[in-house]
């Protein structure tokens, strides 16, 4: 595999992410924000804690759906961006394997999760392992169910 995960994370994490004169961060073919993890976690946590037990599954599905749709559009934005072309594309030899490995290195650099693909059989199976992710920070003590 030609993908140098460490190099991708190093380079992508170095990209300066700051609002321009309009307070916007255009990049990766999307508008980006850099917000406190407590904000994203706070809404998900309060939403799922406040709903009745019989609606919990629906609330969780809504959150997953938001991430799902975001992952589709942002993932596409990332793998077609100038930043990708500069850093990751030169390493891509096997498609789609290298693109997927490269994408998870970028997701890691974005601070979503220290995550990587541990098993990949194209068109059949993909196993992703997240070793550390900001959404796990909702518990400061003990472990949530």
């Amino acid at each position, binding site marked *: 595999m030609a993908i140098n995960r460490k190099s991708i994370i190093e380079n992508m994490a170095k990209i300066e992410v*700051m609002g321009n004169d309009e307070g916007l961060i255009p990049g990766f073919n999307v508008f980006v924000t850099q917000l406190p993890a407590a904000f994203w976690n706070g809404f998900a946590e309060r939403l799922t804690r406040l709903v009745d037990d019989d609606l919990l599954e629906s609330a969780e599905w809504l959150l997953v759906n938001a991430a799902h749709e975001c992952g589709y559009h942002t993932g596409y934005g990332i793998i077609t961006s100038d930043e990708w072309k500069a850093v990751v594309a030169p390493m891509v030899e096997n498609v789609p394997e290298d693109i997927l490995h490269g994408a998870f290195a970028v997701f890691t650099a974005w601070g979503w999760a220290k995550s990587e693909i541990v098993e990949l059989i194209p068109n059949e199976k993909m196993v992703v392992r997240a070793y550390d992710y900001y959404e796990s920070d909702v518990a400061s003590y003990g472990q949530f169910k």
Partner: protein
Amino acid sequence: MALMKKTEIVLDHQFDRKTCRHTLNGELHVLHCHHYATLYSRLADDCGMLDGKKLLTEVAEDVFFDLLIKYFNEHAITSLPDKFTIAEQYYAATGLGQMNVVCAGPESGEVELLHSHVDEGWIKKWDKRSAPVNFITSGYIAGMFSAVFERPTPFVPGRRKSKHCHGR
């Protein structure tokens, strides 16, 4: 001639190579895009099982209140103009947009939103809409006013003649 010194926010961005996490002034921050912010906003708007709009506004208010209070204390920011300048600059630096606090008092105020991640992201994704969609900024403004005036009682975001933000 007296020279006016412009207050500039100090932002210390760090990327921890071991945990692969970003911090801004010591607080964990994470990159997301307008798809996620607008989908969260739509989720809040659609959420019939709870008052999702209020929930999202309150979360933003609480988080940004804490963050701004911490900054004001750590950097000895005490005057109202400096506090609002810092709040406007943080809002812009994190990519939420460009806001201008037109007037403010302990009971009310007015904020112009010149550019907005959520509003412009919403329009890009789904086109214009007459009803407000920017619950995140409503919460930010409420938290900002509470932090600036050091009032524990939450401000109530409104649409006109008050602290507000609305879709363009």
